[in-house]
C-alpha cells in the first residue's frame, strides 16, 4: 500500500492501487453478462417458439420454466445452478456413455446460471413481439411460396425486432446488474474486486462507491446503445 493515501493513488494501476483489480473485474463482469445474455437470447427464442407452437406439452414446459424462474430469487437460482449444474451435466454425460471427468469451471457455471434466468425473461419478450407482428404478413409470405425458415428469416425476425428491442434492452440492463450476484459464488468479477478492496482498506464508502460508478458507466453506455438500436430497428416505420 502506498504511503500517500490520496484517493487517486488508491485507484492507481499496479501493486500499489486497486485500479487494475477493478478493470479486470469489470472485464469479467462484462464477459459473464455478454455470454449469459447470448445464452438467454437462444433460450428465449426456443421458449417463445415452444409457447406459440400450439403443442400442449411444449407450452406447459415453457410456461413452467418462465413461471418458476420469474418467481424464485435470482440469488437462489444462481446458487442452485452453480452447485448442481456441473453434477447434472456429468450425469447427463455418463448417461450418454462419456466416462471422462468433465471439469466445469466457475465462469461457465456462472454463465449457465445467469443465462438460464435471462432466458425466462427473453421468452416473454419474444413471445409478445412475435404476437405483435400482423398475422397477414406471414400468410402473405406463405402465399408467395416461402418455406418456414425463409418466412421466419425475412418476415418474422426483422419485424418482431422492432417490438422486442425495448424489452430486450431492459433485460440486458438487468443482466449486467444481476452479474453482480455471481460474486456470491466467488467468481472474481467487479463486485468481488470491490469487496476485496473495501475489506482490505476498511474504506467501504469509497470502494463500494467506485463499484457503483463502474456499473453506472455500463448502464449509461448501454442505454445509449439501446436507443440507437431502437432507432435502427424502427427504420422505415412511419411515425405520427
Amino acid at each position, binding site marked *: 500500500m502506498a504511503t500517500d493515501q490520496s484517493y487517486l493513488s488508491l485507484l492507481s494501476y499496479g501493486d500499489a492501487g486497486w485500479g487494475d483489480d477493478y478493470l479486470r473485474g469489470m472485464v469479467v463482469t462484462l464477459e459473464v453478462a455478454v455470454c449469459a445474455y447470448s445464452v438467454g437470447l437462444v433460450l428465449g427464442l426456443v421458449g417463445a417458439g415452444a409457447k406459440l407452437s400450439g403443442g400442449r406439452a411444449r407450452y406447459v414446459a415453457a410456461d413452467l420454466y418462465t413461471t418458476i424462474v420469474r418467481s424464485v430469487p435470482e440469488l437462489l437460482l444462481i446458487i442452485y445452478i452453480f452447485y448442481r449444474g456441473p453434477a447434472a451435466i456429468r450425469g447427463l454425460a455418463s448417461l450418454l456413455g462419456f466416462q471422462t471427468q468433465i471439469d466445469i469451471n466457475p465462469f461457465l457455471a456462472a454463465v449457465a446460471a445467469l443465462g438460464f434466468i435471462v432466458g425466462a425473461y427473453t421468452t416473454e419478450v419474444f413471445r409478445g413481439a412475435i404476437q405483435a407482428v400482423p398475422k397477414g404478413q406471414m400468410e402473405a409470405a406463405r402465399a408467395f411460396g416461402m418455406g418456414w425458415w425463409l418466412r421466419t428469416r425475412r418476415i418474422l425476425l426483422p419485424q418482431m425486432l422492432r417490438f422486442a428491442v425495448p424489452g430486450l434492452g431492459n433485460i440486458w440492463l438487468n443482466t449486467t446488474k444481476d452479474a453482480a450476484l455471481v460474486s456470491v459464488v466467488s467468481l472474481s468479477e467487479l463486485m468481488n474486486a*470491490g469487496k476485496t478492496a473495501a475489506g482490505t482498506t476498511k474504506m467501504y464508502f469509497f470502494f463500494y462507491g467506485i463499484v457503483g460508478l463502474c456499473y453506472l458507466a455500463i448502464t449509461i453506455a448501454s442505454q445509449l446503445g439501446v436507443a440507437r438500436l431502437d432507432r435502427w430497428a424502427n427504420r422505415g416505420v412511419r411515425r405520427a
Partner: protein
Amino acid sequence: MAPLIDFLLGLWPKLLEGAGMSVLLLIVSGVIGNILAVPVALARVSRNPVLWLPSEMFIQLMRGTPLLVQIYILYYGLGQLLGQMPAVRYSFLWPYLREAFWYAALALSINTAGYSGFILAGAMRAVPYGEVEAGRAFGMSKWKIFRRVILPRAIRNSLPTFSGETVLLLKSTSLASTVTVTELMRVTSEAYAESFRFDECYISAAIIYIALSYILTRGFYFAERQLNKDRLPPKPSSIAAVALPAK
C-alpha cells in the same frame, strides 16, 4: 423415505420463520419505498429543473446500479460512519442502528422509491388532460387535483406494473441474507450448512418463494378488479333515474 420426512418436518418451521422475516422486510420497504416514490415522481414530472434534475439523477442511480452494491454501501459504509460518531455510537439507539435489518430495509426502500417513482411518473403523465381540466372547472386547487384526480388515476393505471414490481421486491429481499439478516435465504443456507442436504433445503425455499409470489400476484389482481369497478357496465343509480326519466 421416513428420514426425509423427518428432516423436512424439522426444516419447514425454520424456513417459514425466515419467510416471515422476508415478508416483514417486503412490507416495511414496500410501504416506505412506495410512499417515497410519490415525491420522487412529482419532482420528475415538474418543469422546474431544480426539482426534476435531482429526481432524474436519483432514479438513474437506483436503476443503474445493482441493489447488492446499494446494500453494501449502506450496511458497511453508512454503518461504519455512524459507528464512528460518538453521539450515535453511545446513544440508546445504537442497538437498533447496529441491526442489519434496518440497513437492508433502508436500501430496499430507497431502491423501491427509485423504481416506483419512475413508473408513477410515467403513469401521471398518462392521465388524460381532460380530467385535470375538469377538476379545474370544479374550482379544485392544484393540490386537490393531484390528490383526487391525478394520483388515484395514476396508481390505478399502473397497478399491473406494481404487481410485477412487488414480486421483484420480494425476490430482492433475498439479498438481505448477504448482510446477515435471517430471512428465508439466510435460514436456507444455514440449514444447508448444518445438514448438507442441498436439494431439500433449496427446493423447499424455492417452493415458499413461488407460493409467496403467487399470493402477491393474486392479491394485486383482486385489488385491480376492486379498484376498476367503475369500468364495468354501470348500474342505474337513483340520480340517473331522476335526471333521465324513464321512457
